[in-house]
């Protein structure tokens, strides 16, 4: 249901005069750049701490200016365009990435209604009625930057890295899109401010927890971050699509990656964690500082997600490419589709005032079906494992190491068993 | 927001739903049934669903209703064409299901995506796989074909056009022999078809701009009340006509026909040649007779010109052909011209004539291509005309049946072709386009020449020493040929029952 008590609406933001729009644009831009510098520093400090070392602490107090120093260093590097590269597209690709990543942040509601320079407005650039769809589409345009960078570099490793990165991004984009359907179902709108406004009673992280889990996993996959970052792993494809880039063009890709992380985290905050809303029970804080305290709440949730990203990077090992493609296509998509069906049926039942018995019965039936299907899957997997292990543990004349070794997900080719049969006389 | 729950008359769209549901079931069979059982399941599902759909069509006899909120119109012409399509599809599916003719197992390749001559293709051939994915593809195409003449607005027509075309693009590339030719045919069909669909869509947009609605009855009203800029409307009509004429392979949008008919596997050619024309002409009839009937003084000259050029050029090009499938392709272009002659006569007789011609032509086509699958040598089908000489010595029955089909194509009395041509030319004459009739008769005479030439070749020439053999047709092909031949004869000798059926059915609902 669209809540009529939305305090930030498109009407409010539509009344902004031109100079206010420019002021807000610059504010958002500066906010993003500062957050990027902060997250570069934060990542290196936090990962270092997790690895029992100090991290950058020389440039500025606590090493806070490390990001800036990195930027200046990159600016002073030589700008190389490889001979085999397609010059125009080579220069265009980071520009596309950088432009689209900033544009995606335009509809994120960062505060409630505040007064800025004497006018009643909100710290949100604009509010489209299809806000979330806009963000997803701009993110898709950002994939162009990756693919064009790899293509125009004129060498194979960037091309393969770019293709892999983009294949990964689009695979997880499907899962991300599907996980948001339940949110729209409950909010009755795609506009970001309406979704924040509709989370006044319960945050969607509580009501739609599976959607939140799927969204979180797919947002990590979409931004090419650990543990899904094989496309840029140094041992695999050197630098992936930005191998041939140097100096500030490389910095633009770096910037675009971190702004993407911020955007998906901000989207997660908006859609699932209630945006700028205070924790339930602390609602009175939303009025502090003339409404600006909501920004503190938003920032706190954003930083929590950022820490979560960094934590994942510092803790989890990389997944193999085929493992996480399999995960994205074969696990996330069916789960999201089934969850969408469950949510829509439950909502339809509750809207029609079905008695609780029906709802409980339906939920129970769904759980039962899922258990049955899950056990069938388990049985099939167990059979496959037995078949594999019977092949490996056959006695043979060859020195076979002591097994239990965990068997990879690839099927063992049938050739070894044939040769083992032959030597078994 | 007031949401008005749409009323869907499921009974009236039941034939389409049955065929599409069977197609989805076919996809599930492909996914889950083990390979050895797939063929049986698919043949049963395909033939069963087509028969069920035909029963549903028969039960709808006499309905005259605009269904599904104006998107589907179920009236006499729709039901007649759907019934014809389903019967033709039975013949087509019987040919597609035939496994006893080709030494490799079926007329379809094992693995369509491999490069011809590559290692992967050799492995696929050696594995002996016979794929059955053709069946759900055929059913999807058939579902689109059933919807195409029944469309009540331009958007539904476009959706049906795409649903019927996309599987056909794919099926054209599945021939087992001469893979390169087959893949070329599929690519050409796809590219040209995509372009023509784009033309259709752009034309629909222009017509929408004129009329403010895409529904055919709404367009009709807008034309009668002169709602807007005529130029926009005429441009839209021109573009839509381009899209539709591509599908029926009228000149100058015929370029795909010879290559695709030759390159596609012959069962698919049979299905495509017969059913696509029926469906597409159904759509043309509905668009021009229902939607644009008020504009007839504008489109009649255009279509008359197209019909004349199609008839003349179709027969002239067919004269020089040396490949049987290409010759039949060019002759089908000529027949499209003949049917357009009936369309141009904007009266009930024209409608009846076109409907009868479609039915007659469809069955003759199925039969003719079925016989082409029977003449084989060591490399597959022997389609060069010289290889067909003296065929009557080896198998008089097959040669006589083929002669029957050729005579039906030529329009010789006692065959369905004669009654059809007579109906169409009579209608054209009664509506005043005597030029069309004269050109039509002359083209028929020229066409008769190359049809009779083949008959003479088969019966009176010496057979080649290492010539092809005529395989004894296994049961499915026999059934298809019998169906086609009997309909051709019955429609030629005793057409009155079908003509009466058409007469009662030939009334469009608005």
């Amino acid at each position: 249901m669209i809540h009529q008590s939305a305090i930030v609406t498109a009407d409010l933001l539509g009344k902004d005069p031109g100079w206010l729009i420019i002021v807000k644009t610059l504010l958002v831009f500066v906010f993003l750049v500062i957050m990027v510098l902060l997250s570069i520093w934060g990542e290196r400090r936090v990962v270092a701490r997790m690895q029992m070392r100090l991290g950058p602490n020389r440039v500025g107090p606590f090493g806070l200016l490390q990001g800036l120093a990195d930027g200046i260093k990159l600016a002073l590097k030589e700008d190389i365009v490889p001979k085999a590269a397609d010059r125009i597209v080579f220069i265009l690709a980071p520009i596309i990435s950088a432009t689209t990543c900033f544009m995606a942040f335009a509809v994120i509601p960062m505060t409630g209604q505040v007064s800025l320079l004497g006018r009643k407005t909100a710290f949100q650039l604009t509010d489209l009625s299809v806000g979330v769809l806009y963000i997803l589409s701009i993110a898709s345009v950002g994939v162009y930057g990756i693919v064009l960078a790899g293509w125009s570099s004129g060498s194979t490793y960037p091309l393969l890295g770019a293709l892999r990165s983009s294949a990964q991004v689009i695979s997880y984009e499907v899962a991300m899109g599907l996980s948001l359907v339940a949110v729209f179902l409950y909010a009755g709108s795609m506009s970001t401010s309406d979704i924040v406004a509709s989370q006044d009673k319960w945050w969607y992280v509580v009501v739609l927890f599976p959607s939140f889990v799927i969204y979180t996993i797919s947002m990590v996959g979409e931004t090419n971050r650990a543990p899904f970052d094989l496309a840029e792993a140094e041992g695999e494809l050197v630098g992936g699509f930005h191998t041939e880039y140097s100096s500030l063009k490389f910095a633009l890709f770096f910037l675009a990656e971190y702004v993407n992380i911020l955007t998906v985290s901000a989207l997660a905050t908006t859609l699932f964690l209630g945006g700028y809303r205070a924790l339930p029970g602390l609602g009175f804080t939303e009025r502090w500082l003339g409404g600006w305290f909501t920004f503190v709440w938003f920032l706190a949730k954003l930083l929590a997600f950022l820490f979560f990203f960094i934590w994942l990077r510092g803790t989890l090992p990389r997944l193999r490419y085929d493992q996480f493609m399999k995960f994205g296509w074969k696990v996330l998509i069916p789960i999201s589709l089934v969850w969408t069906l469950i949510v829509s049926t439950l909502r339809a039942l509750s809207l029609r005032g079905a008695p609780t018995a029906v709802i409980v019965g339906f939920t129970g039936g769904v759980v039962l079906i899922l258990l049955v299907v899950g056990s069938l899957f388990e049985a099939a997997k167990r059979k496959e494992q037995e078949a594999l292990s019977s092949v490996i543990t056959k006695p043979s004349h060859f020195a076979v190491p002591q097994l239990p070794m965990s068997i990879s997900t690839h099927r063992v080719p049938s050739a070894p068993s044939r040769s083992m049969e032959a030597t078994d006389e | 927001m007031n949401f008005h729950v749409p009323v869907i008359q499921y009974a009236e769209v039941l034939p389409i739903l049955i065929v599409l549901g069977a197609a989805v079931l076919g996809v599930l069979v492909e996914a889950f049934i083990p390979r050895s059982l797939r063929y049986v399941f698919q043949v049963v599902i395909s033939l069963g669903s087509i028969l069920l759909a035909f029963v549903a069509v028969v039960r709808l006899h006499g309905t005259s209703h605009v269904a599904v909120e104006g998107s589907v119109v179920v009236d006499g012409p729709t039901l007649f064409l759907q019934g014809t399509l389903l019967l033709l599809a039975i013949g087509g599916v019987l040919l597609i299901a035939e496994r006893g003719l080709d030494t490799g197992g079926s007329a379809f390749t094992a693995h369509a995506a491999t490069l011809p001559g590559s290692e992967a293709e050799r492995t696929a051939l050696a594995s002996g796989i016979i794929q059955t994915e053709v069946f759900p593809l055929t059913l999807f195409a058939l579902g689109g074909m059933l919807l195409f003449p029944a469309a009540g607005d331009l958007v539904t027509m476009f959706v049906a056009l795409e649903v019927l075309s996309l599987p056909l693009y794919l099926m054209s590339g599945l021939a087992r022999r001469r893979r390169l030719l087959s893949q070329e045919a599929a690519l050409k069909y796809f590219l040209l078809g995509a372009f023509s669909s784009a033309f259709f869509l752009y034309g629909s947009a222009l017509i929408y701009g004129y009329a403010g609605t895409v529904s055919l009855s709404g367009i009709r009203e807008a034309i009668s009340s002169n709602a807007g800029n005529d130029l926009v409307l005429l441009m839209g009509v021109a573009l839509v006509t381009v899209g539709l004429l591509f599908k029926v392979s009228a000149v100058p949008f015929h370029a795909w026909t010879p290559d695709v008919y030759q390159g596609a596997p012959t069962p698919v050619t049979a299905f495509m040649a017969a059913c696509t024309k029926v469906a597409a002409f159904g759509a043309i009839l509905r668009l021009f007779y229902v939607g644009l009937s008020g504009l007839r003084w504008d489109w009649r000259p255009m279509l008359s010109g197209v019909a004349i050029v199609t008839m003349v050029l179709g027969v002239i090009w067919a004269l020089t052909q040396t490949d049987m499938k290409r010759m039949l392709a060019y002759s089908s272009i000529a027949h499209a011209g003949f049917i357009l002659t009936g369309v141009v006569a904007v009266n009930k007789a024209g409608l009846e004539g076109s409907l009868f011609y479609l039915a007659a032509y469809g069955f003759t086509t199925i039969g003719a291509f079925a016989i082409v699958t029977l003449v084989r040598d060591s490399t597959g089908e022997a389609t060069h005309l010289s290889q067909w000489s003296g065929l009557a010595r080896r198998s008089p029955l097959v040669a006589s049946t083929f002669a029957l089909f050729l005579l039906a194509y030529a329009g010789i009395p006692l065959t369905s072709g004669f009654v059809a041509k007579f109906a169409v030319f009579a209608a054209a004459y009664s509506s005043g386009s005597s030029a069309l009739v004269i050109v039509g008769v002359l083209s028929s005479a020229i066409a008769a020449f190359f049809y009779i030439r083949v008959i003479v070749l088969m019966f009176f020439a010496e057979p080649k020493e290492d010539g092809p053999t005529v395989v004894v047709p296994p049961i499915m092909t026999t059934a298809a040929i019998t169906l086609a031949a009997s309909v051709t004869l019955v429609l030629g000798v005793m057409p009155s029952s079908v003509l009466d059926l058409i007469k009662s059915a030939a009334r469009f609902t608005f």
Partner: protein
Amino acid sequence: MNLYIPILAIGAVGFGFAIFSVLAAALTGPKRYNRARLEAYECGIEPTPQAVGGGHIPIKYFLTAMLFIVFDIEIVFLYPWAVSFDHLGLFGLFEMVIFIATVFVAYAYVWRRGGLEWD
């Protein structure tokens, strides 16, 4: 319309920043020509000559893109349905269940046929 102007504004700011960076990179960096630096990078060894566009790109990338299109279109159909779900009644629910079931059939077919394998 005026709701989209801020988007243009931030797009212009981002674009301007990117152009400024690219120009600054060309100006502030040193220019020490070294022929080796212009070759494609392959961990220090001679780059294997390979046609970038002419070499065969594995078909599985194309397949993934095609499947993405199919499921993205499904998502596009799901979004407006979800937004106006409360007003659509049971009819809306049933129709969408049938739609999702049909897409599931296609998904199952692709799964079984190995279209989702990546190795």
